[in-house]
């Protein structure tokens, strides 16, 4: 259970503190490694259990945004991802319903529970994106919404009397749906991703992938990846945030081979080989959604939910939110640090 031999000596690093009352004492420095001398089980590793229990009690928040032109299967995909009727699809828009004049932002919250873990899932839909004749700046309402959520969080954080748990409405993940033309990315796609990859984690997804054959799919994916790289668009998982070698190799593999995921969504079940599975029935066969040979839905699901969910939240909190906060505070001259108000003001004056 414990590593190391019991023979190593310990060198304790001391930092003595000055007795004068109002002087700031030194932070203890240079921790010393003592894995060598634990002569028996203490119980430090129970902290994992304690932590797990605590998080189960508090529950999780997750906010996912879907962006793409109408008819690309956004709602279906979200329903398939979370195996429930999360979004109510507009099954063919009626002639009476007008296309929204501008991009609307609709956020719907759900509470789902699995294995004792409660999650508040919010799906943010963006009807009207890319649907007008003139689509200039149609990403602006979306960017505004994302920044508004950061602003809300910042306001809460900056309060004097803060809540114990600040409600997190920040967008953790944005699925961008690429039309399966088979050629390349559209200018609208590039513009959107260029603007938003700096404020939110973007995961590009090729929608309705059952319109392409396997070769077309691989070629298209390669071209898309190349275009994204040429345009300097960093989609999630971003290269610069890989923490260690392990992460890097794992993420490299995903970045260079799997992404963008070519997915097919469906919430209808069919009988195949005696099993009931999700799929799409066509005259020439049944497309199995969760079959890796047919499409990459399973990869997307595992990636987003089973392995990188927490990481998505952390990157949003530690990086995107911090960038927003730093920019916002810099623009306003910054919040004063507790003692050196004069210095800070002088600096910003200059």
């Amino acid at each position, binding site marked *: 259970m414990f590593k190391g031999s019991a023979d190593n000596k310990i060198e304790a690093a001391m930092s003595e*503190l000055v007795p004068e009352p109002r002087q*700031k*004492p030194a932070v203890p420095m240079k921790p010393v490694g003592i894995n060598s001398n634990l002569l028996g089980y203490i119980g430090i590793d129970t902290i994992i259990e304690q932590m*797990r229990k605590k998080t189960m009690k508090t529950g999780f928040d997750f906010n996912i945004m879907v962006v793409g032109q109408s008819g690309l299967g956004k709602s279906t995909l979200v329903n398939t991802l979370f*195996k429930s009727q999360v979004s109510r699809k507009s099954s063919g828009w009626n002639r009476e319903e007008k296309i929204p004049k501008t991009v609307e932002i609709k956020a719907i*919250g759900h509470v789902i529970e*699995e294995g004792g873990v409660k*999650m508040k899932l919010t799906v943010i839909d963006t009807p009207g994106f890319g649907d007008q004749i003139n689509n200039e700046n149609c990403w602006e309402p979306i960017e505004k919404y994302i920044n508004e959520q950061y602003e809300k969080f910042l306001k809460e954080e900056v309060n004097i009397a803060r809540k114990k748990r600040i409600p997190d409405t920040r967008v953790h993940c944005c699925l961008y749906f690429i039309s399966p033309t088979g050629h390349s990315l559209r200018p609208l796609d590039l513009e959107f991703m260029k603007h938003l990859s700096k404020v939110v984690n973007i995961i590009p997804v090729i929608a309705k992938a059952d319109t392409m054959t396997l070769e077309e799919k691989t070629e298209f994916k390669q071209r898309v990846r190349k275009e994204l790289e040429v345009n300097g668009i960093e989609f999630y998982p971003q290269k610069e945030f890989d923490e260690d070698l392990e992460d890097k190799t794992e993420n490299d593999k995903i970045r260079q081979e799997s992404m963008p995921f070519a997915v097919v969504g469906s919430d209808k079940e069919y009988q195949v080989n005696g099993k009931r599975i999700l799929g799409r029935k066509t005259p020439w066969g049944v497309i199995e959604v969760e079959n890796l040979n047919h499409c990459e839905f399973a990869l997307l699901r595992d990636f987003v939910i089973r392995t990188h969910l*927490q990481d998505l939240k952390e990157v949003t909190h530690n990086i995107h939110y911090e960038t927003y906060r730093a920019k916002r505070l810099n623009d306003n001259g910054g919040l004063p640090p507790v003692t050196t108000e004069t210095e800070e003001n002088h600096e910003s*004056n200059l």
Partner: protein
Amino acid sequence: MASSEVARQLQNDNCRPLSLSGHVGFDSLPDQLVNKSINQGFCFNILCIGETGIGKSTLIDTLFNTSFDDRVSTHFQPNVRLRAQTYELQESNVRLKLTIVNTVGFGDQINKEDSYQPIVDYIDAQFEAYLQEELKIKRSLYNYHDTRIHVCLYFISPTGHSLKTLDLLTMKNLDSKVNIIPVIAKADTISKTELQKFKIKLMSELVSNGVQIYQFPTDDETISKINATMNGHLPFAVVGSMEEMKVGNKMVKARQYPWGIVQVENENHCDFVKLREMLICTNMEDLREQTHARHYELYRRCKLEEMGFRDTGPENKPVSLQETYEAKRHEFFGELQRKEEEMRQMFVQRVKEKEAILKEAERELQAKFEHLKRLHQEERMKLEEKRKLLEDDMIAFNKRKAATELLQAQAFASTPSVSLKKDKDRKKDPGFRLELLCFDVRDHEIVSVQEQSEREKLERDRISHREFQK
């Protein structure tokens, strides 16, 4: 297993609960979170307060099963100091950065009025450091080495009577800043019955004086029962020892006396096991959370309010930190500008004064120069007069000389050598005249040298005066 409180809160936010028709997979979320935390490592900071020699270091060694430090402190410290040491422990895959802070010289002074102050200051300083980091513009909270004290073990002397005044005073000052767990040190000096009475006395004293010690949390069903029982055993009576002895057929940590062996890990002998259980195995995470959510928030609130920030403005409208800050900034800038103006005025004034002084000096010098010039003029005129007189004298003398020569010539009119003599005499005359001329020149020289030096002096004065003015 998930608490209904969360469900209620979530439902309040207009979320409809959904049922899943299959396995999605987000139940691995706690695992993902835990894995991330493991990668980052944990921090835990313990503060030990107690008199010198009461057994703080030994107890910590026993708790973590390691020999941390060998230094024994003296009883003659002039005032209380704190000594902090950080260690990295690892057990299976969990890395813990443990910081032990000891008080050195606590309770040794003759006048103990200020004994608790360094401790309070230290705790505040750790909160302050965290607050500073949180208020920075570019911050990295997830990388931050958290030095805030998570738990304070207060060592009570086993007198068997009651709390000392110093203990009461210190605990009263610390209970709103840190989680206090009181322990009775060197519990092997008290017998069982006395111990029971002592514990009851201590708890009643703490309660009657309003000292809030840390209560183990009883809201989680799995641990509430055991926590509640433990709450009844506070303060824990502990014995610490790193020496191992053979009891029965096992090696146990114990203290050997002539009348028997006190085993540290025997629950009948002392409460050490309970302490370790509560501190490390069950409530470590809760201690950390309480420190962050309660004590730190309280400190932050007080500190920010002290600085003048409020959540609601004068008409009870919510004022953001931003607005308050802007207002203060305006105020401050106004102040700054005023001070700048003041300084500028002062500067201008000083310059004026200096200029006036210098002008005075220049005028004086000028006057002096004029005066000197006048003197010089007068002297010159005098000299001119003298010269005139001299010249007149010379002419008169020459005339007389000529007359005498004529007479002499007349006397020697027969001899032509006279004319020669006259010539010779005449030749002699230039010599005399030369002499006179020399005299003249010399005189002129003397006069001009004096004039020259005076002129130079005035020039020098003038130049230096000009430089000074510049």
